[in-house]
């Protein structure tokens, strides 16, 4: 009994330590794994350096191959072992990598089999890779698959601990409320008992009615009442005005989208340029929601998520969202081809400018060179996008008043900027001075 109690304690402290030092432990574990794997690989592939191999793999092979999954080309983990079972040696691999079509032409049976299996698309020749390079890549492919068991474990533990803490909070609050109630009841009963006691003993209780109560005094003080009334009216007017003027202002609007698309992962972690997906922002009035074929440019090869996860957004969650994309785009990930059964995604529009206001993205993005974040906020940090700016006219106008016109290397502005800045006696013109406050520039 005692022993088990002790072990629980140890376990608890262990858990806590794990929570605190989760990252550290993962790193240590990873390091350990790498060292371990390095040993195992060095056993099977003699000359290869798997670290170099990994970078070579990512640079040359990753566009078409994955380690554990069929893509444009076959999965490459333990490829050498697999080929060896077909009776093909490393020399064959060198020849294949450097010029696969030559191998196919030579009538090689396995080469032709692979060629036909993968839709008769010949592999790009890599004559620039030396044999040593290929050895390194093979070393990398011979590594054992990493088991992400540890991180899952910690995640589970941490989630359970957070659960327990929330439960305890509720209990504490409940207990406090109960105590408070007891106190109130006790006080009331004490007062009651005292009164009864006084009645019994005929003690004259002090009668408070003779003295006018404070609230009556206040009511009778007309001046005070007027001041209070005015104050009350003014402050309510202030709040009503504030409330009314934010009608239709949807700052912070963060609807749930049909696919949980994380701008944080795409624009933040992976640093993809906004205009890669929202390309029409450069030339059009709308920034454009990317069509699914743009998503599939990358997601053909990115079928699972391997970045940071949280309790709410686990790896499984993200992978599931990618599956939603595949379903919409009609992509059969297993067969690596389109089924043709697609359906558009009905995104919920976040930034709803009213129809009577004309806004053109290309004017701001291309001509003025305004960063997307200026209006859309730190999108690269948003897990779910919300409306950052109020999108009110005052907000537009303020920016137009403060922002200088970007005239650099723009022949259109040369003359007008020179003349206008002379007229206004400034070096740099703001958008407002350029005419950016005129009603008809945005309302037509």
């Amino acid at each position, binding site marked *: 009994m005692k022993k088990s109690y002790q072990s629980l304690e140890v376990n608890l402290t262990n858990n806590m330590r794990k929570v605190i030092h989760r990252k550290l432990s993962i790193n240590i574990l990873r390091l350990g794994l790498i060292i371990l794997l390095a040993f195992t690989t060095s056993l099977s592939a003699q000359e290869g350096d798997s670290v170099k191999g990994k970078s070579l793999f990512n640079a040359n092979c990753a566009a078409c191959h994955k380690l554990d999954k069929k893509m444009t080309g076959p999965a490459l983990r333990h490829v050498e072992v697999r080929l060896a079972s077909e009776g093909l040696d490393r020399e064959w691999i060198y020849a294949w990598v450097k010029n696969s079509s030559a191998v196919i032409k030579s009538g090689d049976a396995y080469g032709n089999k692979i060629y036909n299996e993968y839709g008769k698309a010949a592999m790009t020749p890599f004559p620039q890779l030396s044999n040593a390079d290929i050895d390194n890549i093979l070393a990398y492919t011979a590594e054992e698959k990493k088991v992400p068991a540890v991180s899952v474990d910690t995640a589970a533990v941490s989630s359970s601990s957070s659960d327990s803490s929330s439960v305890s909070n509720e209990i504490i609050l409940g207990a406090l409320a109960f105590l408070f109630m007891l106190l109130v009841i006790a006080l009331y009963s004490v007062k009651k008992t005292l009164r009864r006691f006084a009645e019994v003993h005929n003690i004259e209780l002090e009668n408070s009615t003779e003295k006018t109560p404070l609230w009556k005094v206040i009511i009778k003080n007309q001046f005070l009442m007027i001041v209070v009334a005015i104050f009350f009216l003014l402050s309510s007017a202030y709040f009503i005005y504030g409330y009314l003027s934010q009608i239709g202002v949807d700052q912070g609007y963060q*609807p749930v989208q049909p696919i949980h698309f994380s701008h944080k992962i795409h624009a933040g972690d992976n640093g993809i340029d906004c205009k890669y997906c929202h390309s029409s922002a450069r030339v059009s009035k709308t920034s454009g929601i990317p069509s699914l074929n743009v998503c599939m440019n990358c997601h053909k090869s990115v079928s699972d998520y391997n970045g940071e996860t949280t309790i709410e957004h686990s790896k499984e969650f993200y992978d599931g969202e990618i599956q939603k994309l595949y379903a919409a785009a009609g992509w059969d990930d297993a067969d690596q081809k389109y089924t043709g059964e697609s359906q558009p995604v009905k995104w*919920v529009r976040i930034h*709803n400018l009213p129809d009577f206001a004309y806004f053109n993205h290309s004017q701001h993005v291309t001509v003025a060179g305004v960063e997307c974040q200026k209006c859309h906020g730190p999108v690269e940090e948003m897990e779910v996008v919300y409306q950052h700016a109020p999108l009110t006219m005052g907000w537009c106008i303020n920016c137009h008043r403060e922002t200088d016109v970007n005239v650099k290397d723009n022949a259109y502005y040369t003359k007008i900027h020179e003349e*206008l800045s002379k007229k206004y006696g400034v070096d740099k013109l703001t958008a407002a001075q350029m005419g950016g406050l005129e*009603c008809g520039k945005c309302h*037509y």
Partner: protein
Amino acid sequence: MSSNKKYWKSVEELNENSSIVETLKQNEFVEEIPTDEFLGDKDTLEATSTTRRDFLKYVGFSTAAASLAACEGPVKKSIPYVVQPTEIIPGVANYYATTIANGFDFASVLVKTREGRPIKIENNTLAATSGSANARVNASVLGLYDSLRLQSPRKQGESLSWNAFDSETNQKLTDIAATNKPIVLLTQTFASPSTSKLIAEFTEKYGNVRHVVYDAVSESAALDAYQAKYGERALANYDFSKALSIVSVGADFLGDWQGGGFDSGYSKNKVPVYGKMSRHIQFESNMSLTGANADKRVPLKPSEQKLVLAKLYSLVTGVSVSTGKLPEHIEKAVEKAATQLNKAGSSGVVVTGIQDVNAQTVVLEINEALASKAFDKATPIKTRQGNDKAVRQLITDMKAGRIGAIIMSGVNPVYTLANASDFLEGLKKTDLSITFSMKEDETSSESQYIAAAPHYLESWGDVELKKGHYALTQPTIRPLFDTRQFQEALLKWTGNDVSYHDYIKEAWGTDILGGSSFNKALHDGVYVGSILTEIASVDSEEIEEKTEEPTQVVSGDAARALAASGKSIGSLELTLYTKVGMGDGQQANNPWLQEFPDPITRASWDNYLTISKADADALGLMNKHVATGALNGSYANVTVNGVTIKAPVMIQPGQAKGSVGLALGYGKTKGLKTEMQTGVNAYALYQNFNSVQKVTVEAVSGEHEFASVQLHNTLMGRGDIIKETTLEVFNTKDKKYWNAIPVVSLNHEETPVTSPEVDLWDEFDRSIGHHFNLSIDLNSCTGCGACVIACHAENNVPVVGKEEVRRSRDMHWLRIDRYYSSDETFEEDNSKKEGFSGLFGDNGSLGGFGEMENASDNPQVAFQPVMCQHCNHAPCETVCPVAATSHGRQGQNHMAYNRCVGTRYCANNCPYKVRRFNWFLYNGNDEFDYHMNDDLGRMVLNPDVVVRSRGVMEKCSMCIQMTQKTILDAKRDGRVIKDGEFQTACSAACSSGAMTFGDINDKESQVAKLKEDNRMYHLLEHVGTKPNVMYQTKVRNTTEA
């Protein structure tokens, strides 16, 4: 002393025994007021527990709840493509060159599409071949989104699949071919080389095939005459830019004569350059657009037109032709015209609209005799191919039951034939009838099969507009419905598996292109066979030189025959014509065109019998203005050969005495909304394809309510609205004489209103940046109205309907005012007004102005497009209580709709009356069931312009969305804007070059030069508004030769 007078309130009181008197003593009203009926069921009313106060509470709560609920914004969805087409970027317009060829209108156009939807028709500037887009062509895009279009093929009212259609029709056609009964293809004029080829293949397969081409409004006589003389079934082509002296006898060549499209050439010589301009004499019966633009107009009866032409022939060629007696003033006018033509020589040209082979032959001979440069024999017009004789024969055969099958495309003979009942009878006797139609119209609903046809914006096609001048039609949107075009069906019936696109491509490759790129031709929309034209032009020159003498020798016969036929056919002669806004009527379900005011009568939503004042008085017909300012007219029974139709009467200044006019294209009843079923069907009177008919007119009871946006107003000598002068004065006198700037008295000195000292406002510096100005040349404006429709399409201008137009609530941002003179000329009006002295007497203004209100029997006419003048010192801006309308540095008068509260002060203070108020919500409102009331029709809306709501003022924005786009494009490219890049919808639509738009701060621009032109003036300049729209003084060439 008391009086014994009896006072009485009603006659009843004089009768002592009247019961009414007794009742009135008791009650206030004779009959009991039906309060219960008014309040509803008494029992329920009493039984209800809801008191009045409760009711008010409910109203209060529900109002509060509704307004609170309205605070919550709706959730909007954005749905991107799955695979975005590379050529489509949302928010960026794409343009495609294509060609409209609906049998009546043929034009090369540019189609603006947004997100894959065609939203506007523009001029294809690469296509110099033929006329540019007129009002109807501009409006044709709306036909694509017609909610009454057929959505699938139909058989006896039931829809069926194309597969079923194919198998059934194939079988029937094969059966009929086996019996050797003829299969007839009754079609519009396609003028399509590939279709001709297809029909030939179809004929080859089925043997006894007859192709009958039918034009609803026939040009058969002109075609016959040309064919007889030049051996080719085509229409003579005229390039009026090469003519300095134009004589037209009944040819409305600025309208739809010979397919139209002559206005841009005509306008080129209408502007005085180095003191020279063309002179145009018009002999006509109806007041046409062409007559209104003529330098001299002679009204005369249709029968007299023939005599005029014969006489003109004898005077020009010298061949003596005895013509009957003509009234003296006409005689004189013909002589002068002949002198003028002879003087002009090869710069002269004569045209006629008389549907008579002799008349058409005579014209060809006169032009040959003149060796007219404007008469272009090398490239005759191919867009009319109809053959009246063949149609007549067909109807006879059909009635006799001799026809096996009839396949129709692009025609609606049950509506457009005068003897429609005969046709219908024949149709019933035909074994198989198939109609390709976009609508369930008069003809298609009577045929066994309706093959749902696509709109031209969804079709492939090719047209030979003129000889050697080809144009391509390409789809600009996927077919909205399950439709198939006629040519595709022909391919199916001939067992050809290729698509029509491939067929055209192949046909062009072998027959037309001669090695040029098909894609280039498709991109341009037009292709002019280079080798062909070279040969043709050489040919024609040779012919001209060679044939000059023999032609002069040969004839005279045609003219004599013409003179003989020129007998008066009765006391009243009817001329049937087509309106600029409606044409042959195939676009009758187009609300833009229905609401388009006729350039001459300014009436919308109607056709009517035009009649001269004298004839109207004689027949007891009248027009009157009602209290709202609207026009009412009497009805008349119009009878031609026993066929009577009841039509409203419009008294038309300038209508020749003894003649009446009636427009075709109205009175359709099938395949269109009830709102669009306007006017009367004049085709019933178009007997024997003759547009001139002997007619009897008699007044019948009843009054018709017209929806005219302008009454028959005269200018009343107000020379500062339309400034006009003659070529002689223009050439000889100083600008101050004919285009003086108005002056005001400042310190007892005459000061021009344009000088800053007399201005109420401070001048604002507009010398930096762009400053937009629009110049409108009153000389080259023909009043065709293409700009009006282009403005509608570009700016989402709503259609309000006949009732609202009648209440002067039309929403046109751009109107073309038409003014008449009360004397023979405006000049005389002006001098008459100047001559007034005192109120009474012979020169009294009191009587004088009254007289001037009436337009002359043959008035001069002037057109003036008026839109917001974008005043630099705008009266509207100063009175707006909420600053909803303000001025921009670029010269535009802005209108922020969302700021407007609808006081209408601005409209009251506008001297030009160009502001339009939204009295109702015109979109998504069942009361206004036009295109903006259904999802399909709304697809035509321009996404860059707001759709206005009820209660706000709107007006011309000088197409700020277009100028802003031009500026943005230049900014993005980092370049300076060239002259000509700035356009408005109206200036881009104007093919006559009357409207020039641009930046006057660019001193090299055309508009900056026009601003300095001597002819330039501003509308109502004395008001001192300093508009950014300017007009160029109209110069009339009144120099008699």
